[in-house]
């Protein structure tokens, strides 16, 4: 077993280079004045943030600060929670995804999601799991499904291990493999953005490493927004970071945002500095 990387905060050097040599592309998503309320309880308030195209943006912060709530407002997942109200604007490209003429199902076919615990459909095979999103969206042609499945499984670094057993049950895979299957499933419908909610928190270090390795390559296909409570992971993997925290009224705020390098080496806000140096957590 090879040595695991040192648990030191090492800024993402590739990202630094990319940020410095290439012009900023139009953001994949933007949020303005975003707030989320569950009934009368305000949980997240007044967030303004941009998510650059083709990059990985991490949302970090102590537990309970509203990172997941923030993430789920980006693909209208809160629509499925009765009593949840989302305020503000969330733009995918130029379009406000919460505008009344846009359906949530439309949004979610363009903004995919990977969850904290792998949730493959238990009654379906590996193949059926990967293509399930395509089938849900009305694509039935075998040729397209086959091709998309292979492409997605390759992108999730799973093809070689499952190529010969595509028809077997998805539940036979290990935890890490199941999560990569879920990533493949989300990728198969070619979303513009992929939201990831602490995708490796339930996995062992090796599986975590594998998934982190493929995130870098995925940037070519999708823009990634990842929530993580592990700041070393954020430092390893992301190009940009957003740091959130709750105030005394238990309302989450975006404290600081910027390139990962800056957040970790010269944060502007003292609270950010406290968090990334481990003084609070």
């Amino acid at each position, binding site marked *: 077993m090879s040595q695991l990387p040192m648990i030191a905060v090492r800024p993402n050097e590739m990202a630094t280079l990319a940020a410095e040599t290439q012009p900023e592309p139009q953001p994949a998503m933007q949020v303005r004045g975003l707030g989320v309320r569950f009934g009368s309880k305000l949980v997240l308030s007044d967030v303004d943030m941009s998510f650059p195209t083709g990059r990985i943006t991490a949302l970090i912060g102590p537990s309970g600060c509203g990172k997941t709530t923030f993430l789920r407002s980006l693909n209208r997942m809160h629509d*499925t929670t*009765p009593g949840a109200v989302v305020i503000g604007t969330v733009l995918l490209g130029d379009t406000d995804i919460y505008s009344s003429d846009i359906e*949530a*199902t439309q949004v979610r076919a363009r903004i995919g999601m990977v969850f904290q615990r792998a949730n493959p459909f238990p009654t379906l095979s590996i193949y059926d799991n990967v293509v*399930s999103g395509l089938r849900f*969206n009305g694509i039935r042609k075998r040729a397209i499904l086959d091709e998309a499945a292979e492409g997605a499984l390759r992108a999730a670094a799973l093809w070689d291990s499952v190529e010969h057993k595509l028809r077997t049950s998805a539940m036979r895979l290990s935890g890490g493999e199941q999560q990569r299957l879920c990533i493949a499933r989300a990728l198969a419908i070619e979303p513009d953005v992929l939201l990831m909610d602490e995708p490796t928190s339930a996995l062992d270090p090796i599986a975590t490493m594998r998934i982190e390795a493929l995130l870098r390559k995925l940037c070519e296909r999708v823009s990634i927004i990842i929530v993580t409570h592990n700041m070393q992971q954020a430092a390893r993997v992301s190009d940009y970071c957003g740091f959130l925290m709750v105030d005394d009224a238990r309302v989450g705020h975006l404290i600081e945002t910027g390139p990962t390098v800056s957040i970790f080496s010269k944060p502007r806000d003292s609270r950010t500095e406290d968090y990334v140096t481990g003084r609070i957590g």
Partner: protein
Amino acid sequence: MSLPVGVGRSAGALRRLRLGDRAYRRALQALGLVVLGIFAAVGVSLFVQAWPALVHSGPGFVTGTTWDPNKAIYGVLPFIVGTLLTSAIALVLAIPIGIGAAIFLSEYAPRRIAAPLGVLVELLAAVPSVVYGLWGLLVLAPIFVSTVEPPLTQLPFARGPALGVGLLLAGVILAVMILPTITAVTRDLMSSVPAATREAVYGLGGTRWQVVRRAVLPSVRVGIIGGVVLALGRALGETMAVTFVIGNSNQIPRSLLAPTQTLASLIANEFTEATEPFHASALLSAAVVLLVIALLVNTLARLLVWSVSREMRETG
């Protein structure tokens, strides 16, 4: 196995403590055995009383189609058929309605109206079966005679005079009685499907119906079958409501509108007048047959429902 002396109490007191606990456990275990014994006694006592008639009729008891106490000929096949057919009709009607209602209550209805509506459906289960029987005989039967059955007599399997009472009405009443079972079991199972499974479908751009059809229903399929089998068990053993409306004919029913008899209604109708040789014993044999069928069906149901709830607990 003893603790060192001086750990808070004397060794003697500790030993007394353990004895008290052991006696307590023994007493409760004995009670458990008594309870098991009671139900074993149910089966055994019926079987003992049924034995003479079973010996007298032999295997012809279950396969014979003639039930003639005067000639001491006892064959319960017509009643087995009657029992199975009424239950089958009940299932055919209750399954789609029960599952459909459960889907609505669990997935579509806002919580504020789902709760009272659910209570209303469950109230169906609390109504005593004699009340169902009374309503069936005095309210539904006349409606069946006048409105429901005449158009049905055109169908090949529903020939015969429109009497109101008979196979169809009994099946309909049973359907109403087992509806709450199917709805309640399905609802419970659906609400225990973890949110993550539903969100997987939403996350891929699925509609709410796709969530229900592709994520929720497949994961509870086995449990729903268990609930259906459980409902079947109830339908098979139901006596009073059926006795009111079954029509009391000892022939194998040849039509949906025909009067017939189930094992349970047979016993209810004839037992107090059973004076011929072997008659009472034969009725008890019919009870044994009914008991065996009910036991098998109920055991199957419990195994199915248990396996699903165990799976949910392990993966949830």
